[in-house]
């Protein structure tokens, strides 16, 4: 007899519950509840931080002025803007059912999602960076984690995407970096025109087939409901929002350039050094657009920007060496960036 894939569609839920519901399921699966595929849609926009990420990555004023709640999840990834135009899905399995190695595990749990997009008429692919893409654009955000003895991958169907707000919530070095981030986000993050009902139905079938399980509607267990209330308290506590994993990283991020990942291999940086300032968009290792400022450039600013555009971001040193002391300061600002781990 096939194992059960419990399916729960929570429908619209508050920002808090759009996170705590599936975390509660992870605790349940960890102690014996069946593997579960769940869906929900946040009833209001909010911002969500990955487990390790710092509050200083967010523009607190923007979030407050726009009434955006800030929450922290137990899985990975960066700060993201979420709203009712996104259907969330979460697949949760016992850890023993997931392959060793993060890449094989993620691939196994993301391929049925790709199948669901394709069933909805969007020829999505899972690329080498394990991102679900349509052409050059990422069309699905995801994060993953092991919570006790359960592995969970969560993601979203983006029906419409507010690039301006998604950029607005981020703390960035200056307006130049903000412009570059917005431009790259518009180019590399896109909604997918998929009927959510078709998407959901296809995903249930795809996961059931991939796992060899029988999909069955279900609901939270008593333990999960108890856990849900505990998670509601935990996720709204100051200590959790500050971040159990983020505390030591605050100092690290302040030392480095302000960096923002738009999607895998696509990121922006904003950095200063001794009065010099750089903001750059980096596309697959190459500087796609750049703005520099240094009081000593004496009218050669555009010449520096032209020289930097189109070169590998890790080889700016020799180019900037030709611009004397201002060039050395700008090179030092660039050196603060390390996009490889974003």
């Amino acid at each position: 007899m096939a194992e059960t894939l419990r399916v729960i569609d929570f429908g619209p839920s508050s920002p808090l519950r759009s996170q705590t519901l599936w975390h509660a399921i992870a605790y349940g699966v960890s102690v014996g509840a069946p593997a579960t595929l769940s869906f929900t849609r946040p009833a209001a926009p909010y911002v969500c931080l990955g487990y390790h990420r710092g509050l200083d990555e967010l523009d607190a004023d923007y979030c407050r002025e726009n009434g955006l709640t800030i929450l922290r999840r137990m899985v990975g990834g960066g700060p993201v803007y979420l709203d009712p135009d996104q259907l969330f899905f979460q697949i949760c399995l016992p850890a023993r059912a997931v392959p060793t190695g993060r890449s094989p595990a993620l691939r196994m749990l993301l391929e049925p999602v790709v199948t669901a997009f394709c069933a909805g008429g969007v020829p999505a692919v899972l690329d080498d960076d394990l991102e679900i893409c349509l052409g050059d654009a990422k069309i699905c955000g995801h994060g993953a984690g092991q919570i006790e003895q359960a592995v969970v991958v969560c993601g979203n169907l983006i029906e419409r995407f507010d690039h301006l707000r998604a950029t607005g919530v981020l703390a960035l070095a200056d307006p130049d970096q903000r412009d570059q981030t917005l431009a790259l986000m518009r180019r590399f993050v896109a909604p997918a025109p998929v009927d959510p009902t078709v998407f959901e139905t296809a995903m249930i079938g795809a996961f059931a087939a991939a796992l060899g399980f029988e999909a069955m509607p279900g609901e939270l267990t008593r333990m999960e409901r108890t856990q849900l209330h505990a998670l509601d308290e935990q996720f709204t506590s100051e200590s959790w929002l500050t971040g159990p994993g983020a505390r030591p990283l605050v100092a690290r991020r302040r030392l480095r350039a302000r960096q923002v990942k738009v999607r895998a291999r696509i990121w922006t940086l904003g950095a200063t050094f001794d009065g010099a300032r750089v903001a750059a968009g980096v596309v697959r290792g190459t500087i796609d657009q750049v703005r520099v400022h240094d009081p000593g450039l004496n009218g050669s600013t555009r010449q520096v920007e032209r020289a930097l555009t189109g070169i590998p971001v890790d080889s700016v040193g020799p180019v900037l060496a030709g611009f004397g002391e201002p060039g050395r300061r700008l090179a030092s600002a660039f050196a603060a960036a390390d996009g490889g781990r974003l």
Partner: protein
Amino acid sequence: MGDGEWVSVAGFELALDRCYQPDTHMWVLRDEPGRVRIGMDALGIETSGTLAELSFVEVGTELTTGRPFGQLEAAKFVGPLTSPVSGRVLATNHEVAMDPGLAERDPYGAGWLIEAELDKTGGELSGLLAGRDEITAWFAARIADYRLKGVIAE
């Protein structure tokens, strides 16, 4: 690398001067009586993917074998760093928390994760693999298994 003897097994470095927890790829190096240093071996690091973040429990926290002493994030996947021993955390490696790449570059040396005082009940390291023959055989078999399953490249 640490100061002790090490070998290369099918392309992966393996330090021979310490014990290993075979499921979690954590190594345990006796520092002084009752005190150990803990890290992750090169194969565990490789199968994690590029490390983005490492975080640890606070110094003084009680450790229990099989329970987390921190979290590792790679490929947007957050997972537990599982303790191979019971005891108490004496120190965490601030350098590796600031620069997780250190664990990739020097997993047996500067990339150590925590130091711990062992539980006084004794026998804490008895469930771990030790000795050149035992650990190299385990390591080679695990590499072959991971390659067969496509977890790591040929």
